[in-house]
C-alpha cells in the first residue's frame, strides 16, 4: 500500500460516475493526468520492433528519448535502436533537417550490419518548427538506396488532432511493403501487436478456407515480412489498426476488411458473415467451403460460450468483477455480456468510451444504471489503490478473491492479485474472445498472481519482437 507523504487523515475521494449519469464519449473532465504503474500496453518502440531486422532511430529531446531508449533496453533490442538528441541550440539554429539527415547517416555508418529498413521517429519539436520531413526522407533515400526508410512519429501533442500516435504507428508497420503481384490465395491479419491465437475463430476460418495467412508477428526476417505484400485481403480487428488497413489497401490494391472485436454473439456473427463474403469474393476460397466452415465454428463457439458462462458463474458467483480498457478495445461489450449472464460487474475503468462501444454504453445505462465508471488518469486516482484497499480491509474483505480484475489497471487500482493479465485482447477474436476471457477469469479466481511485479513489465508479450 502507498506510504502517505502528506500525513492526510481523511480519505481521498475517488472520482467515478454511475453509468446512467455519464456523458458520451468522455465521462470525465480532462485535467492534470496521473500515470498508474501498470505498463503492459505496448508503445511505439515495441510495435516498430515487429518489423524484422529493422532499426529504429529516434530524433527527440533527451526527456522524450529516455522512455523509448529504456523500452528498447528492457526488451533486449538496443542493437536495433539508436538516438539523435535535440539540444536547445537546435531550436534556435534552424538546422533541424541537417540534424536528422546527418545524425541518421552517422548512425547508419556506425552500424555493424546494414539494416534493410530504418524507422526514423521525429517528434513534436519537428512538427512545431515546420521541419521539412519530405526533404529529409528524400535525402536519406538518395544516400542509402539499399535501405527502406519510413516516417514514424513520437508526437503525443498531436494525440487530439487527426490520427492518434497509436493509429499512426500501426499504419507505419506496413508502409515498407513493396508492391508485388497479389495472390488470391494469401491474406494478411494486420495491425496487431500480439499474434492472433491459432485456435481463434479467425485463424480457424482462414485455415479451413485453404488460405495462406500472413501476420507480422510470425515473420522471421525481412523477406518474410515483404511477402505479406502478396496478400489480397487485409484483415484487422484492432480499432487502431483500421486506418492503416485502409492506407494499405489504397497503396497495394488489396481489400481491407475490418472485423469488429465484440463479446456479443450477434455482432460476432455479423462481422464474420461480412468477412466470409469478402473472402469468397476476393480470394481463392470457395464460398461453400467458407460458409460451411463458419457454420461449424459458429455452432461450436455458441455452445462453448454458453458452457463457459455457466461454468464460470458457478465458480465465481457474486464476486465483484472490475474491468479496464487495457484488457481489450471493447470493455463495455464485455461488461454487458457478463452482466446479462448474472455476473456482478461493479466497475469499469476507462477514461473515454470507444465509439464502437456506444450501443453497449446506452444499453448499460438503461439496464444497469448503477454500474460505476472510473477514470484511470484523473489526478485523484493517485490514491485509488490505497483507498480501495482500506475500504476492503474495513469491510473485512482482505482475504481470498474479494474482487476479480480483468486488466492490469483494474488490478492495480483494486490492489488484487486475482486478475486477468492480458492487454489488447490478447489475440482473441470471435467466440474465442468470450471463451478465452472466461477461462482466464476462472484461472484468475482460483490462482493469485504477483500483480505488483507483473503489471510493471512494459509491453506484455513483446518478446515476440526479439528474433
Amino acid at each position: 500500500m502507498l506510504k502517505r507523504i502528506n500525513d492526510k487523515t481523511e480519505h481521498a475521494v475517488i472520482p467515478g460516475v454511475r453509468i446512467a449519469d455519464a456523458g458520451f464519449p468522455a465521462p470525465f473532465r480532462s485535467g492534470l493526468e496521473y500515470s498508474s504503474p501498470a505498463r503492459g500496453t505496448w508503445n511505439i518502440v515495441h510495435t516498430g520492433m515487429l518489423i524484422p531486422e529493422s532499426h529504429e532511430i529516434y530524433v527527440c529531446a533527451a526527456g522524450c528519448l529516455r522512455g523509448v531508449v529504456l523500452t528498447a533496453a528492457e526488451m533486449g533490442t538496443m542493437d536495433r535502436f539508436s538516438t539523435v538528441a535535440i539540444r536547445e541550440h537546435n531550436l534556435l539554429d534552424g538546422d533541424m533537417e541537417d540534424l536528422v539527415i546527418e545524425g541518421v547517416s552517422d548512425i547508419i555508418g556506425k552500424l555493424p550490419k546494414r539494416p534493410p529498413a530504418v524507422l526514423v521517429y521525429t517528434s513534436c519539436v519537428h512538427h512545431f518548427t515546420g521541419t521539412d520531413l519530405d526533404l529529409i526522407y528524400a535525402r536519406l533515400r538518395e544516400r542509402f538506396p539499399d535501405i527502406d526508410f519510413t516516417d514514424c512519429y513520437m508526437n503525443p501533442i498531436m494525440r487530439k488532432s487527426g490520427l492518434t500516435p497509436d493509429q499512426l504507428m500501426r499504419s507505419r508497420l506496413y508502409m515498407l511493403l513493396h508492391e508485388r503481384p497479389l495472390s488470391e490465395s494469401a491474406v494478411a491479419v494486420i495491425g496487431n501487436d500480439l499474434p492472433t491465437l491459432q485456435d481463434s475463430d479467425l485463424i480457424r476460418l482462414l485455415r479451413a478456407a485453404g488460405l495462406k495467412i500472413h501476420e507480422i508477428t510470425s515473420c522471421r526476417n525481412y523477406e518474410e515480412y515483404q511477402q505479406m505484400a502478396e496478400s489480397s485481403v487485409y484483415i484487422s480487428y484492432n480499432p487502431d489498426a483500421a486506418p492503416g488497413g485502409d492506407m494499405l489497401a489504397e497503396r497495394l490494391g488489396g481489400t481491407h476488411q475490418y472485423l469488429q472485436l465484440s463479446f456479443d454473439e450477434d455482432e460476432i456473427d455479423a462481422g464474420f458473415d461480412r468477412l466470409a463474403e469478402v473472402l469468397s469474393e476476393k480470394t481463392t476460397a470457395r464460398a461453400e467451403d467458407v460458409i460451411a466452415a463458419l457454420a461449424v465454428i459458429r455452432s461450436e463457439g455458441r455452445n462453448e460460450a454458453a458452457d463457459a458462462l455457466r461454468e464460470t458463474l458457478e465458480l465465481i458467483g457474486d464476486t465483484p468483477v472490475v474491468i479496464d480498457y487495457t484488457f481489450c478495445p471493447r470493455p463495455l461489450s464485455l461488461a454487458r455480456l457478463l452482466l446479462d449472464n448474472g455476473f456482478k460487474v461493479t466497475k469499469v475503468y476507462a477514461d473515454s468510451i470507444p465509439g464502437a462501444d456506444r450501443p453497449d454504453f446506452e444499453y448499460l445505462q438503461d439496464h444497469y444504471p448503477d454500474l460505476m465508471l472510473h477514470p484511470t488518469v484523473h489526478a485523484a486516482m493517485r490514491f485509488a489503490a490505497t483507498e480501495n484497499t482500506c475500504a476492503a480491509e474495513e469491510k473485512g474483505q482482505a482475504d481470498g478473491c474479494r474482487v476479480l480484475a480483468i486488466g492490469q489497471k483494474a488490478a492495480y487500482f483494486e490492489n488484487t492479485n486475482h486478475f486477468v493479465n492480458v492487454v489488447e485482447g490478447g489475440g482473441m477474436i470471435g467466440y474465442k474472445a468470450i471463451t478465452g476471457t472466461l477461462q482466464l477469469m476462472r484461472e484468475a479466481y482460483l490462482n493469485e498472481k504477483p500483480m505488483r511485479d507483473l503489471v510493471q513489465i512494459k509491453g506484455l508479450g513483446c518478446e515476440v519482437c526479439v528474433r
Partner: protein
Amino acid sequence: MKQTARIISTYSADVMGVSSALFELGGMTVMHDASGCNSTYTTHDEPRWYDMDSMVYISGLSEMEAIMGDDEKLIGDICDAAEQLSPKFIAIAGTPIPTMTGFDFEAVAEVIESRTGIPTFGFPTSGMNTYIHGAFMALEGIAGRFVTEPEALDPDSPYKVNILGLTPLDFSVVGQDASIAKWLEENGLSVVSKWAMGSSLEEISRAAEADVNLVVSAAGLGAARILYRKYGIPAVIGVPVGSVQSDHIWRALTRAAREYRQFRMTDDTEGPRGITRVKIHPNELDPAKENELVAVIGEGITSLSLANAIRFEKGLRTRVLCATECPDGILRKWDRMTPDEDDIIPELADATAVIADPLYKPICPAGAKFIPLPSEAFSGRIFRKDIPDLVADPDAILDQL
C-alpha cells in the same frame, strides 16, 4: 557525431530531476507536457512510485493549447487539483514544447500561487538537459523558499550537517542515503536534513540550523549556494566512499563546521569560508601502477568520489568521464565532460578498466576490464538489484580492480 548515440542509453532529463528531487516533500509536481514524460518518469526514474503517494502529474498539453497559448487551461487544471488534493507546494516543470512557445513559468507560478495561496514554483526546464540540471534547480528553489531562520545556537551541541543532492537517480533505493547519514552520525555529526530522501519538508525547513552541508551530487550545489548566501553555511563536496577519503571528508566537515560555528558565535566580520572542496590527490603525484588507468563514467561528484576512493585505496590512476552537468572547479584537469557517445569512446582508448553502467559496455574497448556500476539515472530499473551501497561496502567495486 555529437548528439548521436548508436547504442548507449540516455540520462534522465531535467524535468524528471525536478520531480525526483521534490518527490518526498509533499508537494505536487506538474510536468507541462503532452504525454509520455509522466509514464517515463514513473517507470524508469522513480523507484518510489509504487510505494509513496507523491503527486506527480502531466498537464496533457495539446496542439491547440500550445498554438493558442492557452495557459489558462493549465492554470485552471492545477488550481482544481490543488484544491482537491491540498499539496504543500506546487512545482511546474517544462518540456520541449513550452520551451519553444516561450511559456512564462514564473508568471504562471505567480498566478497559481495568488489563486490557491499555495507556494508555487515555475522551473524552466526544457527536457533537453540532464536530471542534474533539474534537481539542482528544484533543491535550490526549496532552499530559497522554505528554509527558516535558525534557532539560537547551542554551543555544546554536536556539529550539525545537511546532506544535499540525494535522489534515487544517483543513489537508488539500496540504502546509500541511510548509509551516508549513519556514517555522519557515527562520526559525531548530527544530521539535520537529507535533501531529499528520508526527510520531510518540515525537517528540510530547519536546514539553517546546520553548521555545514555535505554535497553528495551536483544536484545539491544549488541548495548549497543558497544556504551559503543566506546563512553563510559552508559546504564540503564528496561522498564518503572508502576509509581514507571518508577521513578526508570528515576532517573537512568538522573544520568547516568549527569555523562556521565560531563565525556565528563571534560575528566574525571576515565571514565564513564558503564552499570547501575536498582535497584531491593529483594523479601524477603517486602513480603506484603507471600503466593502469581506471575510467569512471557517470555523474560528476559521485564518480569523482569513487575515483578518489580508487586512488586512495588502490593507488591507481583514474579519469572521470562526466556525462551530466557539473559546475567548473569540481572535476580535475584530466577529467572530461563527455555528454555524447562520440566524446566518450576516444577517452576510453587507454583505459585498462572501465567502471560504468552496464548499458555503456558496448562502447568500451574489448581490452579493458569492464566493471558494471548500474545507475538509475542511465539504465533506470533494469539493474537495480545489482546497485551496490558504495558507502557501506566500497569493496563491492574496489575488490574488482
